[in-house]
């Protein structure tokens, strides 16, 4: 059974006149423990696709047709309560802006623990223990001290680690990461990617990784989906897409990656 299977997904913004289709017939699937990348420019529909899986689309947009199967069950048929049990427990999500994705008036610890509070019957002590473990795993040092801190006391990279810890704590089977490194410095970005890789290996957690940055996708994913204007342009093994892209659009995207060697050569010449 596939971990995730999206079939002919269509999403539209219905509060504009005429309604605008932003995702047009997107289909893809993921195996258990796989790391799948979705790459595309802003406006390509990749974030809408990611949000629609947990039905977190903003009001004004909706899935107009299509199915999303998670372990063989169509999420579209879930009631609100059933959906709440999937969110954060089976499928967790992290977002682009670590600065604003955490609640500013709640402690880091309570936000990491929240998944356990919502989805398990664990005692407060046990919850704290697991939260501290998840924080350690997410690469946060001095976890006991950090536990009682507030988001504004942390750097962007640390906040994203907190988001990851909060996602990890319930040991979900799928992590949806929507541009989690875009807002971070390059060095921090590399650390977070390493962290996600480790987590994937250790827990066999599937990761759906959304980014506009092909270079980032290449470091993490085994397979990639190239999206453009709401459609899937190309899909395939990461090496194949990188070395022998079939579509013009993919070639253009690849050409846009600044190449280190080339730029070095240019600098020497100039």
């Amino acid at each position, binding site marked *: 059974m596939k971990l995730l299977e999206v079939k002919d997904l269509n999403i539209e913004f219905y509060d504009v006149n005429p309604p605008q289709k932003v995702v047009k017939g997107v289909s893809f699937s993921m195996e258990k423990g796989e790391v799948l990348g979705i790459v595309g420019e802003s406006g390509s529909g990749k974030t809408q696709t990611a949000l629609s899986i*947990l039905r977190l689309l903003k009001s004004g947009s909706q899935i107009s047709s299509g199915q999303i199967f998670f372990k063989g069950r169509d999420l579209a048929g879930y009631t609100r309560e059933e959906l*709440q049990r999937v*969110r*954060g427990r089976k499928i967790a*999500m992290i977002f682009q802006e670590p600065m604003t*994705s955490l*609640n500013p008036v709640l402690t880091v610890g309570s936000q990491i623990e929240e998944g356990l509070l919502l989805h398990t019957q664990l005692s407060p002590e046990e919850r704290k223990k697991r939260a501290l473990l998840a924080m350690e795993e997410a690469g946060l040092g001095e976890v006991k001290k950090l536990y009682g801190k507030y988001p504004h006391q942390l750097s962007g990279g640390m906040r994203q680690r907190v988001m990851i810890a*909060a996602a990890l704590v319930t040991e979900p089977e799928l992590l949806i990461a929507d541009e989690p490194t875009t807002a971070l410095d390059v060095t921090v970005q590399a650390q977070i990617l390493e962290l996600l890789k480790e987590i994937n290996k250790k827990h066999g957690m599937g990761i759906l990784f959304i980014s506009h940055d092909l270079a980032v996708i290449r470091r993490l994913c085994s397979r990639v989906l190239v999206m453009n204007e709401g459609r899937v342009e190309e899909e395939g093994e990461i090496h194949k897409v990188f070395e022998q892209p079939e579509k013009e659009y993919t070639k253009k995207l690849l050409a846009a990656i600044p190449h280190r060697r080339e730029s070095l050569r240019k600098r020497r010449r100039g």
Partner: protein
Amino acid sequence: MKYLLKKTGTLIITLIIVSFFSFLAFSIIPGDAAKSRLGTEATKEQVEMLQKELGLDKPVLVQYGNWLKNFVTGDMGESYSYSMPVQELLQDKIPVTIALTVMAFLIILLLSVPLGIFTAQHEGQWLDRVIMVLNQIVMSVPGFFLGILITFLFGLVLKWFTPGAYVPVSESFFGFLGYLIAPSAAIALPRCAMGVKMLRSAVLSQLEKDYVRTAYARGNGQRRVMYRHVLKNAMLPVLTFWGMTIADIVANSMVIEQVFTIPGMGSLLIASISNRDYPVTLGIIVLVASLVIVVNFLVDILYGRIDPRVRVRQ
């Protein structure tokens, strides 16, 4: 600790400024205490004698200095028109005004918080629209006019209370509170409408925030997102508004007390201003000013309790 000292300093400085300007105002407006006390029949000599007795012949600054000196030692002076110490005069009035203020404030809290949350949750639906239109109307009616309407409707037409039949606390505690319901509602409603609007828009703007999406993604239900995540954030701007509301209620109660013939500080203040009875007036002004400052101080502390970002800066 440092914070507390700073706030106390602010309190003292504000009180000095407020009392000084009130003093100045008295020296500018025509008429004086001696004349109003002796009446129109008094001779010039009598007036001058009384002025000398009361210290009104001295320069304003000296008069103010004397008043301040006495005030610091706890002596607020003696009323010119009632010939009794200001403290004694205020003693029975303060509880009345405080009861009125507290009641009005409770009405504001108990009405505006649920309504603010409710309208935000049902934004754009017909019930929200009806409430917001009513809200707009109530907001634009001045409190004293609302007081007259309430007196007419509930007092004269429905006969739920007898207008003007004030019940002192000494007579019946519940009768006293019962009589205060109408006036406090008159003070509270316009402010309450503002509170609904503020909380509604604060909640709505918070609902747009990224952390709300995170909360949903974690498996929170709507109710928990509202009460655990959104409300605490939305309360911050509203808290400041509530602090200012206290000052507004006190100011409004001065007028409303007239409408409902309640013998609180408001009636006394207005009487003492027309009598040029500055010890009483200043006493009341200083009291009200300190009340407002203390409440704002409490709001600041509460603010810090809710918002960790403020707490750290302190």
